[in-house]
C-alpha cells in the first residue's frame, strides 16, 4: 500500500455510499452466547441495513453489550452466524473484524493515556507501512508521505470534532466528554464500513450529548457509514435512530421506527417487567436459564 491510497478526506469514503437497497450490511442469525449457567444471548437474529443509524435498545441485561462483543470478536459465540458485507465474521478475532471494516467503541472510553490526542488518532489507520518493524530503518522514504497523509487525516478529523486545539495534549488530560469525542474520532480514522457505538451518551452532560449527537449525525450524513448504537438515553434514540431494534432477554423483540417502538405495548412490558400473573405464560421460556456445564464443576446440579 502506498501513500496515494490514503484518502485525503478524513471521513468520506466510498463503500458507505451505497444506498439502502435490500441487502443488509450486517446479518446476525440465531446467535447464542452462554456464560456459565446464564444464556446472555438467546437465538438472536437481526439485520442492519446499510446507511442507517440503527438504535439498539432494551432493558438492563437484555444482552446488548454482549451482542456487541460477539459481533466485534471480543467474545467467542456459542452458536449462530454473523455475516458482514456478505462475509462470515463469526470466529474472527477483534483485530480481524476491524480489518473487515467493523469498528467499535467502548462504553467507558479506552483512550491511550500517555499518548497525545494526535497519536491516539494516528495509531488507528490500517495497513500502515511504518508499522512494519523494518520500515523505519530500511524504507523511511515510504513511511514519511504516508505519515503526513495520516496526520492530515487526523487533523481534519480533530477539526471535524472540534478537538484540534488539544492535539498535543495527553489523552489522560481530556475531560470525560472530550474522551468520548476522541473515541468517535478513532473509529472515523479507521474508515470503517460500519461503526458500533456502545452508549455514546453515558456519563456525558446533556449539553455535550447534543453536540455528540450532532457529530454522529453529521458523520453518517457526510460519509454514509452505517452506525449501530446501543443507547439508553431515549431522547438520543428518538431523534437519531431509524430504525430501532428492541432487545429483550437475549433476542430481538421488535423492530420499527422510533414512534412504533414508543407506542408498542410489548416493548413497554419488556421494560417494565412481566406482571405477577403473567408467570404461567412466561414459564415456557425456561431455556433461558441453562444448567451449568457438569464437567466444569465435576459435581451434579441440585434440582431447581
Amino acid at each position, binding site marked *: 500500500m502506498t501513500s496515494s491510497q490514503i484518502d485525503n478526506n478524513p471521513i468520506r469514503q466510498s463503500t458507505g455510499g451505497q444506498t439502502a437497497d435490500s441487502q443488509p450490511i450486517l446479518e446476525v442469525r440465531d446467535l447464542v452466547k452462554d456464560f456459565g449457567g446464564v444464556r446472555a444471548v438467546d437465538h438472536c437474529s437481526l439485520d442492519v441495513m446499510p446507511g442507517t443509524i440503527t438504535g439498539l435498545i432494551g432493558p438492563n441485561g437484555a444482552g446488548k453489550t454482549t451482542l456487541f462483543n460477539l459481533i466485534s470478536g471480543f467474545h467467542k459465540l456459542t452458536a449462530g452466524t454473523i455475516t458482514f458485507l456478505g462475509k462470515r465474521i463469526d470466529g474472527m478475532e477483534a483485530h480481524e473484524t476491524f480489518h473487515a471494516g467493523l469498528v467499535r467503541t467502548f462504553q467507558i472510553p479506552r483512550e491511550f493515556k500517555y499518548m497525545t490526542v494526535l497519536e491516539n488518532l494516528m*495509531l488507528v489507520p490500517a495497513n500502515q507501512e511504518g508499522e512494519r518493524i523494518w520500515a523505519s530503518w530500511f524504507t523511511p522514504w515510504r513511511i514519511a508521505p504516508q505519515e503526513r497523509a495520516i496526520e492530515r487525516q487526523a487533523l481534519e478529523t480533530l477539526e471535524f470534532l472540534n478537538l484540534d486545539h488539544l492535539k498535543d495534549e495527553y489523552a489522560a*488530560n481530556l475531560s470525560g466528554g472530550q474522551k468520548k469525542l476522541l473515541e468517535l474520532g478513532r473509529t472515523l480514522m479507521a474508515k470503517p464500513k460500519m461503526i458500533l457505538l456502545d452508549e455514546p451518551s453515558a456519563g456525558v452532560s446533556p449539553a455535550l450529548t447534543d453536540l455528540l449527537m450532532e457529530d454522529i449525525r453529521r458523520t453518517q450524513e457526510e460519509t454514509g457509514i452505517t452506525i449501530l448504537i446501543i443507547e439508553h438515553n431515549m431522547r438520543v434514540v428518538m431523534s437519531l435512530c431509524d430504525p430501532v431494534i428492541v432487545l429483550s432477554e437475549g433476542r430481538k423483540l421488535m423492530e420499527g421506527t422510533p414512534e412504533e417502538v414508543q407506542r408498542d405495548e410489548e416493548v413497554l412490558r419488556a421494560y417494565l417487567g412481566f406482571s405477577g400473573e403473567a408467570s404461567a405464560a412466561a414459564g415456557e421460556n425456561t431455556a433461558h436459564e441453562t444448567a451449568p456445564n457438569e464437567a466444569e464443576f465435576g459435581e451434579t446440579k441440585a434440582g431447581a
Partner: protein
Amino acid sequence: MDIIYFLAGFGILAGIYGVFTLGLNVHWGYTGLFNIGVAGFFALGAYTAALLTTAPPSPELFEDFVFGGNLANTLQLGIDLWFFVALACAAIVSGVVALVVGAITLRLRDDYLAISTLGIAESVRLMFLNEKWLANGSRGLSDIPKFLGDFVTPKQYDLLYFAVVIIVLAALYFVIQRAINSPWGRVLRAIREDEEATAAAGKNVFRFKLQAFILGAAVMGIGGALYAHGFRYVDPMVFDPLLATFIVWVMLMVGGSGNNLGALMGAFIVWGIWSGTQFLPPEINNPNLRFFLIGFLLVLVIMLRPNGMIGERRRVSEGGT
C-alpha cells in the same frame, strides 16, 4: 594521564550497560514487557561472539566442533570486519531464543513472561557452565581477539574500544529511536497503555509484542558481544543476575523508563555510583552493601519517583485542560 585510561575503562562498561538499558527500555519502557532475565540474553550474546572468535576450547572433548575459533581468519575480511559479523550473530542468537520463548508466553498473563525470562537466564548459564566441550565450563573462554587490536598499543586499546562502544551505542540509540518514533513504536506504546483497545484498533497485539521482545533481546545480545570483545574473557560467573540483570533494571528505573535518553543517563549515573564506591574507605566499601543498596534503590525509586529522573517526555503540562 592515568585518569583518562580509568575513565575509558569506566566508559566502556557504562556504555555496554547503556546498550542493555536501551534493550530493556524497548521491553519495559515502551511495550510493558517484564523481562527479569537480561543476563540470559547478555550471556547468549557474549558467548556467541566469543565462540565465533576463539579457538575451540578443548578439541579432545569435541573434535568436530567446526564453527568455533577463527571467524577472523575464516572471513578474511579487511579492517576487522569480522567484529561486526560477531555482533550480528550475537543479536541473531538472542533474537531466536526470544522468538521461541516469546511465542509461548506472550499470549498469556504478563507475569508469565517474567518467570520465563528468569528461566532462560538460568538455563543459559547452566548450559555454558556444564557443557565443557562447548564453552570450557567454569574456566570460561579467554583470548577473545581484539577488534582493531593491531592499530594501537595495548595501553591505548581501552581508549579505542571506548570509542567503538560509544559508536555502537550511538548507532543502536539511533536505530531504536527511529523505530520507537515510527508508527511501529506508536503501536507498542498503545499496547503498553491498553492492550484490548489496541486490538480494537485492529492491531495484532501478539505480533507486535513478539517483535518488541525480539528487538530488545537482540540489542541485549549485541551488548553481550561488546562485553566479550571488551574484556576478552567470559565465564559463567560474569552473568550473575545482580550485575547482569538487576543493576540494569535500577539503571532504567532511575533514569526513567519510556525515554531512551533517560535510560542512557541512568546507565552512566548508576554505574558511576557503583564504580565510584570502590574508592570509599574499606570499612564501608562492602560489595554486599552495594548489592543491598541496588535492591533498596529499585524499591525506593518505584515508590518515590516512578517516572525516574526524566521519564517519558510530557509534551504538555500535567493537569492540562
